[in-house]
């Protein structure tokens, strides 16, 4: 591994100062499960590793009208959290399948987002839940919708002197729930071939879609918010036909590639399959009162 310096930042301002001083040479270390491997494989150079796990603001996990997830909160804390389990089940779906248990002890949703893999499991969930990203830089705070955060594989809107502080997720409406699943060749430990997240709000009698948000992973350079597929469901009855309409719309925006993890044809096909399963998963959760 290349040599680098290591600093454990103790405050948010210290972290920002270090980023401002070292710019492209600095890398934020959270759980490190992507970054350490990338540095070892010479895929991301680093001069100074800035460990933010000691910065209080990136470690908070709280619910107070909205869910706030500090950027460095590890997956296992997220899927064990009572509010997350009851109100944001798709977050449980995603965080419990990122790597194995050992990875989940350290890997964070913030890190998953900043790593900006097109196949990241948590990003479609953040999109469908309407998450906002709180970013801190030398000139202060800014906020951006999560679907605008990733710009290309491995690239985000963050300037080199900015860091992601937390994700803020609004409380879902009543009669709403969410679901995430992915397709992988084995049953665990693989990168998603296709990922699909859905957040659905139904009418009080559960017969009609009030709204839906659908997001896809691994079928474009960044995780995608499937706007057309989402809006097509508003006001439609909960039925196989409506769902198929959404699936076809979702397939329409996917631009997958063929690589060692899957073929473009397979991925397009799976968009339809997984969108259907994600929508049904969310609907069943609403009907079962979860």
């Amino acid at each position, binding site marked *: *591994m*290349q*040599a680098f310096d290591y600093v454990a930042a103790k405050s948010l301002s210290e972290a920002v100062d270090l980023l401002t001083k070292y710019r492209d040479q600095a890398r934020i270390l959270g759980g490190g499960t992507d970054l350490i491997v990338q540095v070892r494989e010479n895929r991301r150079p680093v001069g100074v590793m800035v460990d933010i796990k000691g910065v209080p603001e990136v470690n908070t996990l709280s619910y107070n009208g909205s869910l706030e997830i500090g950027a460095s909160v590890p997956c296992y804390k997220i899927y064990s959290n009572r509010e997350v389990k009851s109100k944001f089940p798709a977050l449980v779906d995603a965080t419990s399948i990122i790597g194995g248990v050992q990875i989940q002890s350290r890997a964070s949703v913030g890190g998953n987002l900043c790593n900006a893999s097109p196949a990241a499991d948590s990003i479609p969930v953040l999109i469908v839940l309407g998450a906002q990203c709180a970013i801190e830089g030398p000139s202060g705070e800014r906020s951006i919708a999560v679907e605008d955060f990733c710009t290309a594989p491995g690239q985000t809107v963050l300037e080199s002197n900015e860091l992601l502080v937390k994700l803020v997720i609004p409380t879902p409406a009543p009669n709403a729930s969410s679901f995430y699943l992915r*397709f992988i*060749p*084995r*049953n*665990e*430990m*693989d*990168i998603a*071939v296709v990922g699909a997240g859905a957040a659905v709000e139904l009418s009080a009698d559960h017969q009609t879609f009030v709204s839906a948000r659908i997001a896809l992973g691994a079928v474009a350079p960044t995780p995608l918010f499937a706007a057309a597929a989402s809006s097509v469901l508003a006001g439609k009855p909960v039925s196989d036909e409506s769902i198929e309409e959404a699936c076809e719309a979702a397939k329409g925006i996917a631009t997958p590639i063929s690589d*060692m*993890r*899957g*073929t473009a*044809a*397979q991925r397009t*096909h*799976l968009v339809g*399959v997984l969108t259907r399963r994600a929508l049904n998963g969310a609907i069943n959760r609403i009907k079962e009162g979860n």
Partner: protein
Amino acid sequence: MASGNGYKVVGTRPIRHDGVDKVTGHAKYGADLNFPDMLFGKILRSPHAHAKIVSIDVSRALAHPGVKDIVTSKDLPTLSENILADDKVFYKGHAIVGLAAVDVHTAEEALSLIDIEYEVLPAVTDVAKAIREDSVVLHQSLTTNTLGEKTGKPTNIGSHVRHQNGDVEAGFAEADVVVERTFTTQTVHQGYIEPITATAKYNPDGELTVWTSTQGAFNVRQQVAGILDRPASKVKVVPLEIGGGFGGKTTVYVAPVAALLAMRTGQIVKMTMTRDEVFEGTGPAPATLIRLKMGATKDGRITAADTDLFYEGGAYPGSAVGAGANCMFAAYKIPNLKIDGFDVVVNKPSSHAYRAPGAPNSAFAAECVIDEICQKLDLDPLEFRMINGAKEGDRNPIGPRHGKIGYLETVEAAQTHDHYQVEVGNGKLRGRGVASGYWGNGAGRSSVNLTVNQDGTIMLLEGSTDIGGTRTSIAMQAAEVLGIAAEDVRPAVVDTNSIGETGVTGGSRTTHATGLVAIRAAESVIEQMKEKLADHWEVNLNQVDFSDGTFLNSDNQISFKEAARICSPVVGSVTESTTGAGGAFGTHVVDVEVDEDTGKVEVLRYTAVQDVGTAIHPSYAEGQIQGGAVQGIGWALSEEYVYDQKGQMVNASFLDYRMPTSYDTPMVETVMVEVPNPGHPFGVRGVGEVPLVPPLAAIANAVSRAIGVRMTHLPMNPVSVLKALNKI
């Protein structure tokens, strides 16, 4: 607790002798050594699948602080191209330069400072392309050796062998159904979790010590001595505990380079591969292309088989096509047969042994075609095997007569098993597949040294490195002869200076061959003790008996322990080139469910039946069967070397070389039938390799029956299943 067949120790399940060390982290494996002032070695490997090396400049690397020495092929006394390339590289990952530095990170930095100029050549990584007239040729010096004669024309086909019996055309004419299919299997790796490693030290007195994880310390000694042009007696190989081998660690990769660097620097050098180096720099199992035509009568008798086997040797000839041919039809009586086997080079790492090398590939073809014949004839596939199955005295269709074998017993056990009795279930795409398989098993040279201590315990020194519990199964065999508890035997795997020559722990030979010499050593010790007791009791030797752990004459009776106090030290030292191995068969039953929307195959239930001769330690025999079956699941469904257009492997990592996890597999039920091998005093048959022979076809047959489409290419990953289902 005695076992069922009258033995006191054989057939029981004692805790393995090395167990406590292994569950507490104290066992020392190959890379666990740390010495003061140790250097770390690294190897620079070719980034190209096929290239000429135009020039190598190591000056910048040598100048890097902390780098102590750098070597290339010209520094090896004996040219050994796969260890360090000569003037051409034949696969991405081909070793070119070795270096030693003060720590592993410095060594890694130095690699990037080596400047090599290549002339990149077109590469061929597909056996179907490599056999064509217009293919890129790897070695100008390689001409086909076909049926014993050389053609004189450079080619990628290293050898062509043929087995022939009867008249296949007549046999096909006699058949009521003929099935002809072409099969392909992919390149797969043994997947041992512990990477290749060796640590070397050169003593000023001229002795070279190599600590390594290996399946054959004497192999390492011979290869290192040969390559470095040293006398074998001056190379000491110390085998540490080994983290998996499956055939892949029966040869050397880094040991000669570490040794060379140790000789030149005068310091200890440790060299350990990274995981991607293991994939790209060691020998995987060959990919294959197999065309097979078989015919049978409507009452289920096989009349003929005609097959071409093309096996990839990788960069150099030497694939296991011969063993593949030998095992392919061993379970059956086939009157008319023609097998043509071709060993083909391609720009991939030089292939090496993987658990019954060659046999899983050919069994995949044979057992799938048999299944298709059964479907066409509407015959139960296990019943078909009872009709055609071989027993003692029948010939393996390629020639040799079977001795006492237990094939039909495995089929019967599968037929009567609860798994085969229950419905596979419907409503979804479910299917059940069966398949059989054979492996010949090995014997050969082993040595042990057995010492009786004064307290009646035994030191048992052996040269067989222990990859799966053999030191215990061998100790149990000695204990059985001596009438003592397995726990009273203290087995130790020792270095090549301390024991007579011993063949590899591979070929399923160890429990048979090393067990045999341990039995002989125990018997020798008993004879010596009888002599000493005759003196002690002042009787004639022929008045002293040993039975059931007791020495006795008409007036006296003492236990082995009491006799030990009187007689020790007593030493039994045996070296023998053993024979008498018994071949073994397995029959597997697998149920799968296919998700028709995603193409994913789930293995629902797995039952593996195998003739183990006599299970010395049933738990470890079961373990071999279960481990092989799960490797088969990975080979059938998810593992493969993926190559890009330039012939470079793109998935050299456990992330994308997908081996089954605990969440991917069901419990594997094992049924061990015991048809004792007459060639071994306790009836032992090798168990380790047979288990990987049936699974590929068993799973393929299950998937084929589940989706109604015959699967002939591995792996049956979701993309291939979706295509078979016409979904994409």
